[in-house]
């Protein structure tokens, strides 16, 4: 009893003061992104004007302080807490959100706090507890996350948050697949199969089958990506084939080119249908075919050859006729030449040649016979024409040089006084 009495006397020490506030209840709600909502109920000394309250963390977002009647209490932030204007309030309810009580390393989250009283910690839905600093006073696994009651002091709780199999992950994969499909469609690529898978993925998501939605979305993404790759390959091959065909055309290698063009046409058709592998293969064949194409024989050459043959025949016939003519009547060139004593030697020789050739020859024959340049041959022929000794006729585009007729057919020059006609 004496002990108690003296202990009570100690209460009278001028330094003994009641604490200005007493923590009553403390709850932490941990969010998936590491933010923590704090709900702190304290009792207050109603005789004081203001009190410094130690809070948890350094940053206090959405801070609301209310008194026992639900009315807001004025406060200002200080290091490690707030100064609360209590003014007769008997209790205060403090709520705020802070990012300072959690930390992440790899896949492991750590929630740590130092508290003066035991507390309730509500971990995020889908979290798995990986350790505590103290044995919990109570532990409950509820639908929206584990609920722990921990003792006062310096407390740590380790946990992980799953991603795979969650709605968010399924949605993220679906959006990724969707974007890939849009990318392909913007390039005119058909992605029917990918779109089908995506639709199924959306359905699974709505039904809450998240793991299945993830699988379908992943497949849709891969399908779209594959189509993009194949289409790109086919486009490239078609471009190369088109280039090869153009080149062949420029080089006039048109023989066999129609085959290449046909294959290219088929390749384009396959591309339109979305059969990109097939389109690429056909385009490659078209390219090969274009490379094999060769220059065709020119059709005009046939005409030319035909024409030359006709001319040759004509000349042959004419030559035959000339021979015949030569046999009907010979030409007395000497007598002819006596009548034209002023003729040059080469002129006389050409006349003799003409006489020997049945009275006529083509200019080209003369040129050939006497190995004369074209111009010299024509000057000679013109001289003889001026002398009245020859006449020129066009036969098949060629110039036929003919002794004047009175000189050709059985008439002698002597019968033609005056020389030639």
């Amino acid at each position, binding site marked *: 009893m004496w002990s108690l009495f003296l202990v009570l006397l100690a209460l009278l020490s001028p330094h003994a003061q009641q604490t200005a506030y007493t923590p009553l209840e403390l709850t932490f709600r941990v969010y998936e992104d590491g933010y923590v909502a704090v709900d702190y109920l304290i009792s207050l000394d109603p005789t004081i004007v203001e009190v410094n309250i130690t809070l948890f963390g350094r940053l206090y977002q959405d801070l609301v302080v209310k008194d026992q009647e639900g009315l807001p209490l004025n406060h200002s932030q200080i290091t490690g807490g707030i100064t609360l204007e209590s003014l007769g309030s008997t209790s205060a309810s403090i709520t705020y959100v802070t990012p300072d009580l959690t930390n992440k390393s790899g896949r492991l989250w750590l929630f740590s706090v130092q508290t003066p009283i035991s507390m309730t910690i509500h971990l995020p839905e889908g979290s*798995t507890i990986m350790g505590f600093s*103290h044995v919990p006073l109570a532990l409950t696994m509820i639908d929206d996350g584990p609920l722990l*009651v921990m003792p006062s002091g310096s407390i740590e709780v380790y946990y992980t948050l799953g991603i795979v199999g969650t709605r*968010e*992950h399924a949605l993220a994969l679906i959006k990724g697949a969707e974007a890939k499909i849009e990318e392909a469609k913007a390039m005119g690529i058909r992605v029917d199969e990918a779109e089908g898978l995506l639709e199924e993925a959306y359905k699974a998501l709505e039904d809450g089958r998240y793991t299945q939605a993830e699988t379908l979305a992943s497949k849709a993404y891969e399908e779209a990506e594959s189509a993009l790759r194949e289409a790109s390959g086919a486009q490239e091959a078609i471009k190369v084939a088109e280039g090869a065909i153009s080149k062949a055309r420029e080089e006039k290698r048109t023989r066999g080119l129609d085959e290449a063009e046909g294959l290219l046409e088929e390749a384009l058709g396959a591309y339109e249908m979305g059969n990109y592998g097939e389109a690429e293969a056909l385009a490659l064949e078209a390219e090969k075919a274009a490379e094999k194409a060769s220059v065709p024989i020119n059709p005009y050459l046939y005409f030319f050859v035909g024409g030359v043959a006709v001319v040759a025949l004509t000349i042959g016939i004419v030559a035959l006729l000339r021979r015949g003519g030569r046999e009907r009547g010979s030409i007395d060139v000497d007598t002819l030449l006596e009548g034209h004593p002023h003729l040059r030697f080469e002129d006389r020789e050409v006349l003799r040649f003409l006489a020997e050739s049945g009275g006529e020859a083509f200019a080209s024959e003369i040129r050939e016979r006497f190995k004369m340049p074209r111009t010299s041959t024509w000057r000679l022929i013109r001289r003889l024409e001026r002398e009245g000794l020859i006449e020129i006729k066009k036969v098949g585009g060629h110039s036929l040089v003919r002794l004047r007729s009175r000189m050709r057919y059985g008439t002698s020059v002597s019968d033609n006084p005056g020389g030639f006609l």
Partner: protein
Amino acid sequence: MPITLFLLAMILSAIPASSQQVSLEIEGNYYPPGGVVRIYGTTDPGANISLVVTSSLGEVLLNITMVADTVGNYTFDFTLETDAPPGIYTVSVSIDDEVETETFTVILSALETLTEQLIEVANNSRLQVEKEIQRLNETGLEILGKALEHYEEGLEALNESLEELGKGEFDDAIEEAMEALRSFKKALLLLSVKAPKVRGEEEAERIRGLEVAIERAYEFLERVEELAEDLMEREYDVSDIEGNLTEAYENLENATMLVEEGEVDGAARELGEAREILGRTWAQLHTLMSSVRMNRVERFMNHTQIRIEALKRRLEALRDRIPEEDVEECLEALQNVEKRLRRIRGHITFGELEEALEELEETSEDIEEALEEVEGRWSIFLSEVDRLQAKMLMLNHTARFLMKKGLDISEFEEEMEEMEDEMEEIMERLRERKERIEEVMEEVIERRREIRKNRMEDEEEEEEEGD
């Protein structure tokens, strides 16, 4: 305060002799409310042991002195209250300067249930580690040997825990489960450093982050709405605020729809708009809170005035029992406080709230000191003296009853008389204000030590005579 109590208890129980050894054990680590905690240990035979049990809230639940038996053992069964607060409790035993401390935990669940839950938690953590190992195997990345080592250790501890649970050794099972958790945690830490992110993980985290940010915005909005409703009930004009809150709700609804569709950018925009509105709304509420504040200050002033009136009445009632000059001094202090309160009211009347609060803050310490002088110092002292006197009266009645039963109460009577004399002396000296209360207390403590010492010497003499 608890430290003061503890130190005093130690001083009172001090036996001026050489330091003795003491051991302390607690049977079990975890107890439910209402449970019986067995505290035991060994020390010198016949030694006086001080035993203190402190709750998780720092409250002293038990403070006794026990005597060790003839072989030096001691045991005490401490029964927890059925509404004992959960948490870590401290048990301290002391002899002279020697102190031993142990703890036990009051849990909320049944021990077996808690054990099973902890084992389940440890098992889930095992699955997490295995999932991570599998993922690393699939990606062909190397798994650190140390990580696998920790995993194996965790498996071993988990199996041990299950065995102990089967035997009903819940404390041991809990320890093993905690050990398993520690090992699995270490394993996961090492594994996850290497593990690459899965496809879509970053985007999924972004979606998730946005979802919870929207959720928080909703919660804040609801709190603001609640505040607005409270203010409205008190006839404050919150019409502007209502419109804003409706708009913010719409933005948050849009944000929710968009994030469900995976439209993260759109959802973030809507959330940003909602937050802006909430910020504006909060500023508007602050304006309203000024008048709440004003009312609160006035109410506080009124309560303080009422308190002062009550204290004045008490002082008058104590006039016969405490020195006159102390009464006058306290009354004067209270009158000064009243003058300051009138000045503060003046500030409030002119709407000078900040000045009022500043002065109120400055005088609050003065008020506390003056009130403590009246209310704390003398009043508590006298109340406790009254209480102790009532207790002494009760003990006297009990002693008489025991005497009628034939028990020898002479020693007890002697002690009672001594206490009464001492108390009377103290009261006289305090009334005469010969010295301060603290000095009196010291003298009492010294007097008590002398009594103890004398008693010990008497007991030793008796023993020698007995031999």
